[in-house]
C-alpha cells in the first residue's frame, strides 16, 4: 500500500476551481548536501531579501547565518559529530524501523527516483558499466551534517490558520504565501508556526554594512518592512513554470522540486536505499500525512534526530486543539457572566 494516497489536498476547499494545480513541494535530501549555501544566496538574490545581522562569525561550524527568519528563507545547518553521536543516530534510526513506522511500500514499486540523479548509476555509466565500491566515503570517526532548511509549506499550516487579515493564503499549488501588501505585521503567525520559520521584518538592509558607513537608512532599503516574511516557494517563478531559485541552483540535487506526490515517493525510495546500504541513521521528516501538521510540503531526509538540526521532534499545529480551546473560553465566559449575576443577586444595599 502506498501511503501517498492518504495525503490531504490542502488547497481542495479553496475554490481555485479550474486554476487548481497539483501540489508542489521540495524533497531536501541532506545526505547529499555539501553545504555550499548556493541555495541561501540564490534565494536572497531572487527575492531581494535584506541581509541579517552584521557578518559576525557565530561559532557554529560553517553556519554563520544562524536560523531561518524574515530575511533568510533558506538556511544551511552545519553539525559536527563524533563517533558516539553517529552510533546514537544510527541506533535511533534503527529503532524507528523496529517501531514499525508506517508506509513501507514494496521496494520494487519504488520509481527509479524521478529527477533524483543517483551518483552510483552515473559513476557506473562513466566507468563503462564497471561495478564500483558504492560505500559512501564516510569514516566512522566523525561526520559533518549539512541540511538546507526552508519553510515546510505545511498541509495544516499554523501560520495561515491564525492570520487575522488573510494576508497568508494557500496558493493553487498548495503552498503558503504572505501577501506583503495585506499583512499588518500583527505577528500572530510568528507564534503560530511550529517550526519557527516565519518572522516579522523589523530590521535589515539590502546594502552591506560596510557600504553604508554614516549613511542614513532610506525607506526603500527594506522592502515590506514591518510585515511577516518567509519562503514563498518562489510563487512568482512557479506560476510561469519555473523551478524555485534554490532548487535550480543546488549543484548536488540535494534540493529537489516537483509535484509533491513525486517528492514523497522519491524520498521514500531514497530512505529505503540508504537503509539497505546500512545507513540506518537515515529517516524522513514530514513525509507522514498523519503527523501533527498533516505532513509537510517540503519533505526532508535527515541523518539524525530532527532536533539535532534545530527541527521540532513532534510539531503539532495548535489549531487542531482549537475547538477544545474555544469550548474552554466559552465556558469561562459563561462562568464569568454567572459570577457577575451572582454578585448582583447576592449583594443587597
Amino acid at each position: 500500500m502506498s501511503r501517498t494516497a492518504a495525503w490531504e489536498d490542502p488547497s481542495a476547499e479553496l475554490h481555485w476551481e479550474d486554476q487548481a494545480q497539483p501540489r508542489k513541494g521540495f524533497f531536501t535530501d541532506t545526505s547529499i548536501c555539501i553545504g555550499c549555501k548556493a541555495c541561501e544566496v540564490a534565494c536572497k538574490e531572487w527575492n531581494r531579501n535584506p541581509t541579517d545581522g552584521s557578518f559576525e562569525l557565530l561559532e557554529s561550524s560553517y553556519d554563520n547565518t544562524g536560523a531561518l527568519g524574515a530575511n533568510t528563507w533558506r538556511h544551511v545547518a552545519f553539525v559536527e559529530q563524533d563517533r558516539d553521536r553517529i552510533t546514537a543516530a544510527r541506533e535511533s534510526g534503527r529503532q524507528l524501523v523496529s517501531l514499525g513506522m508506517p508506509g513501507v511500500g514494496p521496494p520494487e514499486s519504488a520509481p527509479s527516483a524521478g529527477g533524483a540523479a543517483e551518483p552510483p548509476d552515473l559513476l557506473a555509466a562513466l566507468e563503462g558499466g564497471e561495478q564500483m565500491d558504492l560505500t559512501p566515503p564516510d569514516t566512522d570517526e566523525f561526520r559533518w551534517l549539512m541540511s538546507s532548511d526552508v519553510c515546510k509549506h505545511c498541509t495544516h499550516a499554523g501560520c495561515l490558520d491564525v492570520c487575522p487579515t488573510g494576508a497568508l493564503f494557500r496558493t493553487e499549488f498548495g503552498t503558503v504565501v504572505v501577501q506583503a501588501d495585506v499583512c499588518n505585521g500583527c505577528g500572530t503567525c510568528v507564534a503560530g508556526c511550529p517550526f519557527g520559520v516565519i518572522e516579522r521584518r523589523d530590521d535589515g538592509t539590502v546594502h552591506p554594512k560596510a557600504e553604508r558607513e554614516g549613511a542614513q537608512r532610506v525607506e526603500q532599503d527594506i522592502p515590506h518592512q514591518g510585515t511577516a516574511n518567509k519562503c514563498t516557494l518562489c510563487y512568482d517563478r512557479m506560476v510561469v513554470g519555473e523551478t524555485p531559485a534554490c532548487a535550480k541552483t543546488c549543484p548536488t540535487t540535494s534540493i529537489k522540486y516537483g509535484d509533491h506526490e513525486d517528492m514523497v515517493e522519491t524520498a521514500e525510495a531514497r530512505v529505503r536505499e540508504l537503509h539497505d546500504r546500512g545507513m540506518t541513521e537515515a529517516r524522513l521528516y514530514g513525509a507522514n500525512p498523519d503527523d501533527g501538521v498533516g505532513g509537510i510540503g517540503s519533505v526532508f531526509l535527515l541523518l539524525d534526530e530532527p532536533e539535532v538540526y534545530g527541527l521540532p521532534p513532534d510539531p503539532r499545529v495548535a489549531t487542531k486543539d482549537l475547538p477544545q480551546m474555544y469550548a474552554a473560553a466559552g465556558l469561562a465566559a459563561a462562568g464569568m457572566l454567572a459570577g457577575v449575576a451572582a454578585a448582583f443577586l447576592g449583594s443587597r444595599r
Partner: protein
Amino acid sequence: MTTSEFDSYRPEESGRAFGRRRDRRRRGGRRGRGGGADGSREMTMVEDPQFSSYYGRQVVKAPPWGHEIGAYLFLGGLAGGSALLAAGAQLTGRTRLRRSARLTAATALAGGTVALIADLGRPERFLYMLRTVKVTSPMSLGTWILSGFGAGAGVAAAAEADRVTGGRLPLGPLRRLLHAAEGPAGLGAAVLGAPLASYTGVLLSNTAIPTWYASRHHLPYVFVGSAGLASGGAAMITSPVREAGPGRVLACLGVVVDVVAMERMKASMHPMELEPLEEGAPGTMVKWAERLAIAGGVGTVLGGRWRPTAVLSGLALVTASALTRFGVLDAGLDSAKDPKHTIEPQKARLAARRAAGITGDSITTVG
C-alpha cells in the same frame, strides 16, 4: 567534532565569558572554531545528553509582542469585567457604580486598542484586521469582539460623560438618540464583555509557544478570574462602598478562580513548559500576582466596606491582574527562546504515544 582524549589536559582558558558557554551547553558536542578550547567542560557537556539541539538556538520563534500586548490583555479584561458590572448596575439602579464602571470600561478599552495598534508592524493597516472573519484565528474573532464591544461601551460611556458634564457635550439633536441607545448599548457591551475577557487565553494558547500552548485548557479561566478581580477592584476604587457591593463579590470570586485555575494550569504542565512561569522575571510577576490577589481578596472581605481599605484592596487587585497578564505573556516569550522548552515536552509526548503503541503519527518515518 574535534575533541580528543588529550583535551582535558589543556590549561583552562581564563578570559572566556562563562555565560556564553553555558548558553551553548546543549549543543550535542561541538567546539567553537575560534579557540576557547576548554576540554574538561566540553567533556561534561557530552556526558549529559538530556537532549541535543542546534547550538542551543530556538526552535520556535517568539512573536514580536512587546509590553503593549501585556497591557492589552490586562485592559481588555478590565474593560470586559467593568462592562458587565455596569450592565448589572444599570439593571439594579446603582447609578454611581454604573457611571464609574462604564467610564472604566471605555477608558480601558481605548487604552487597550491603542496598545494593540501600537504593537503592529504596520499600525496604519490596523483596519485590515476587519478584512475577513476567520474562525481559526482567535486574533480575527477577537478583533470583531473588540469592535462590537467598543461600539457598545463607547455609546454607554458617552452618555455617562454627557451626564457628568451636565449635558454640555456638543451633541445637538444626537443627544436624545444617545440617551435612547445607552441602555441597549450597555447591555450589548456586557454580552461581549465576557468573551472579550476570555478569548485572549485562546489567542495565546493557539500557538506553537510551549508555555502558552500547554496552558490551553486553563488559561481562559485564569484570564476571566483575573478580569473579574481587576474590574471588581476598579469598582471598589471608583465607586462609593454603598454601591460597590457587587464589585466586592466579583473581586472575591475572581481571586478564587484566578488562584485555583492558575494552580491547576501549572499542575497540568510538563516541567519544561512550567519553568518559565516559575523562574526569572515572569516567575516573580506571577508569584506577586498571586500574593497581591490574595491580599486584595482578604482586604476586600475584611475592609471592603470602609473606603480607604477598599481603595487599597482595589489597587492590589488591579495590580495583581496586570502582573498575571504580563507574567503569562513574558513566560511564553521566554519559553520560545530556549529550545529545551520546545524539544523536551515534544520528545516526552512522542515517547508517551510510542509507549502506548501509537506509532503512526510521528513526523519522522523511515520509508
